[in-house]
């Protein structure tokens, strides 16, 4: 497999690029924020995205999707990053679809995958319980057969989801990889309360409280007590696609900054003539090139289900988080005072870079995990 996009992938990317810029640009996110929109995104636009194949990008054709794999999902995510498009792409089309593909029963796949691919069903992953990502720290209890009680944090699109995928402790100690089980939960069920959080990046996140919420064996995704196998795959999928989104955020912030360096004048010259700024920009260019390589390689490794894919996921998420942070911070700095204004868009990119980096493990988390996977 070469690290070059195929003609089909290039066409898919170009279509995504046009669509995101026209139908889900930064101005749309700004409007959703200013209007304090109760949904936090446009479900109509999501329906259009579904028609473009976004919602079903990971869903095989037999279940109503386009089966374009993680490379395809990454191409969309990069455009989402460039435009800061408000979509339920990550929650429904990546996390939920991966969970169902890896652990879903035939009945679950049959009913849920076509509805997700059609853009009609939103499913959110309710997994994290700590403020810093600690995936096996699952204290949500499962008593009897079965009642779930616990609190889930940073549930993306939680307040608009039609279903939740909840991780619960069915055996073992809090923190153990064994003893976690995934359940499908109806957010309207008795005992579920969902509170939307107002986030710095103006995207959707919620806290989910569960009190004696009834579920049955038919709601289990994957194997009872062995849910971590599915959870690991779901999180790695999310991390890889988020890395692609962060790449898009970094690229866009960088290009906007270069344009500004070419046009802004101080001391009677374009500020882009200053070597102090040129060298910082040139270094950043190199870092972004590295992120391009690792993100593409990682998405390919996930598509091929390579055994070392998790190491590459760590590399991608750490590197993309770090480089997007630098790119957006440099963007604000090089724009000077105007970069600090709300009226100017560049701040939105820095906010999104921060939120996407924190989600499912930042550079610190993934540097530690990379070392562990490498045996030190």
């Amino acid at each position: 497999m070469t690290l070059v996009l195929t003609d089909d992938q290039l066409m898919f990317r170009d279509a995504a690029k046009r669509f995101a810029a026209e139908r889900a640009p930064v101005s749309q996110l700004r409007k959703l924020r200013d209007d304090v929109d109760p949904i936090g995104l446009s479900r109509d636009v999501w329906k259009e995205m579904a028609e473009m194949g976004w919602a079903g990008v990971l869903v095989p054709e037999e279940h109503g999707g386009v089966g374009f794999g993680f490379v395809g999902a990454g191409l969309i995510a990069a455009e989402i990053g460039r435009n800061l498009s408000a979509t339920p792409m990550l929650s429904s089309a990546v996390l939920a679809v991966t969970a169902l593909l890896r652990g879903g029963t035939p009945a679950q796949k049959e009913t849920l995958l076509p509805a997700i691919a059609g853009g009609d069903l939103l499913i959110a992953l309710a997994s994290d319980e700590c403020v810093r990502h600690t995936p096996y720290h699952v204290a949500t209890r499962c008593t009897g057969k079965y009642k779930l009680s616990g609190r889930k944090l940073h549930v993306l699109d939680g307040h608009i989801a039609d279903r939740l995928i909840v991780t619960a402790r069915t055996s073992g100690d809090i923190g153990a990889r064994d003893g976690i089980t995934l359940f499908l939960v109806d957010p309207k069920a008795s005992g579920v309360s969902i509170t939307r959080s107002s986030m710095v990046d103006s995207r959707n996140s919620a806290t989910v409280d569960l009190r004696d919420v009834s579920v049955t064996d038919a709601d289990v995704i994957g194997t009872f007590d062995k849910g971590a196998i599915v959870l690991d795959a779901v999180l790695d999928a999310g991390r890889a696609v988020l890395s692609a989104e962060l790449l898009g955020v970094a690229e866009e912030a960088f290009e906007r900054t270069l344009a500004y360096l070419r046009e802004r004048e101080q001391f009677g010259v374009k500020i882009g003539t200053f070597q102090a700024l040129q060298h910082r920009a040139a270094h950043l260019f190199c870092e972004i090139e590295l992120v391009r390589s690792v993100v593409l390689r990682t998405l390919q490794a996930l598509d091929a289900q390579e055994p070392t894919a998790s190491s590459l996921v760590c590399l991608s998420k750490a590197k993309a988080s770090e480089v997007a942070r630098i790119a957006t911070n440099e963007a604000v700095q090089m724009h000077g005072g105007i970069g600090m204004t709300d009226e100017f868009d560049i701040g939105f990119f820095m906010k999104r870079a921060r939120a996407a980096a924190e989600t499912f493990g930042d550079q610190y988390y993934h540097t530690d995990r990379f070392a562990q996977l490498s045996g030190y």
Partner: protein
Amino acid sequence: MSAQLNSDQTLEAFRRDTRAWLEANCPPEMRQPVVDEYDICWGGRRAKFKNDAQRVWLQKMAERGWTVPEWPKQYGGGGLSKDEARVLREELAALKCRPPLTSFGISMLGPALLKYGNEKQKSEHIPKIVRGEIRWCQGYSEPGAGSDLASLKTRADDHGDHFVVNGSKIWTSYGDKADWIFCLVRTSFTGKKQEGISFVLFDMESAGVTTSPIRLISGYSPFTQTFFDNVKVPKENLLGELNKGWTIAKYLLTHERNMIGGMGTQRVTPLSQLAIKNIGLAGGRLAEPALRTDIARFEMDALAFALTMNRVTDEAKAGNETGAMSSMLKYYGTELNKRRAELTMSVAGSEGLKFGDSHSEEQLAAMWLRTKANSIEGGTSEIQLNIIAKNVLRLPGA
């Protein structure tokens, strides 16, 4: 589809034949890891072979043109396609064969000769590079022209059928061991400084050429200062057009940069393995957490860089534009190499400080000191950043 299948079958047949030939012809001594500088074969008139195996290996590979697998057959090269050359590299790596020949003729001058040389120059010089008969050195930098290379002052004056060269070059790698030099000289003193430079080739045994070794912080003297006192150079030794040498110089530099940048991806023992040995694990993690973080960050960047080298290679194969990438690879690769050396010294502790004992197994300190030149030679890191700012980012006034 069937054409593809056929070419795959042909390639597999080539692989089988290549492996069989290498197994039959690569001496066992040449399949041992390189341990010191004498294990590297540079060729040349005064070539010193460490042993007979080294001489035989060069001869056998040169006969097939496999010292330069992709160069045209008519000049003694291997004439292999990119895919065949890749298969050969993979098979050489699989059998752990050493490179039969390392030279600046191969890595720098050859590509420029093939692109800019006339028929006579190509048929004269290329076969000798292929066979390792002539060892070349590079006459670029001068005491007063380092990063500002185009301000070079070594002059070649027109004396009818020949030039007379006067001046001095510095940082001539192995200038005292080389047979011929490819040299940038000033042939015009008017107009833009880049437009008065010519590219000439001459014999280091010519009257008036002297070299003086330069001792470096690493203790080694791989470089010389080279002096030219009324050296006669026949006009037929001008490569390309008069006063158009700067274009050739830049073309050659991209090859040099790729070579130096590529050192960042050389297969060496992972730093983490040495760290586990010297520091130990506690609870599965290196016992020094701050150092562990830096090692992990380095190894991640090194992997990201290696993947980027692969991507650039793949892009080039697919026919996509990658010329601007050589500055990026040179800059990032050499800075990574320095980071690796600094961390290796930290991990090695007092053992890494041992110096000057030529019998010690690993000259870590010398290696550490040597890496400092990586971000200076072939255009400093700062020059590479300038080039990226100008040619890639199109920033004003750069």
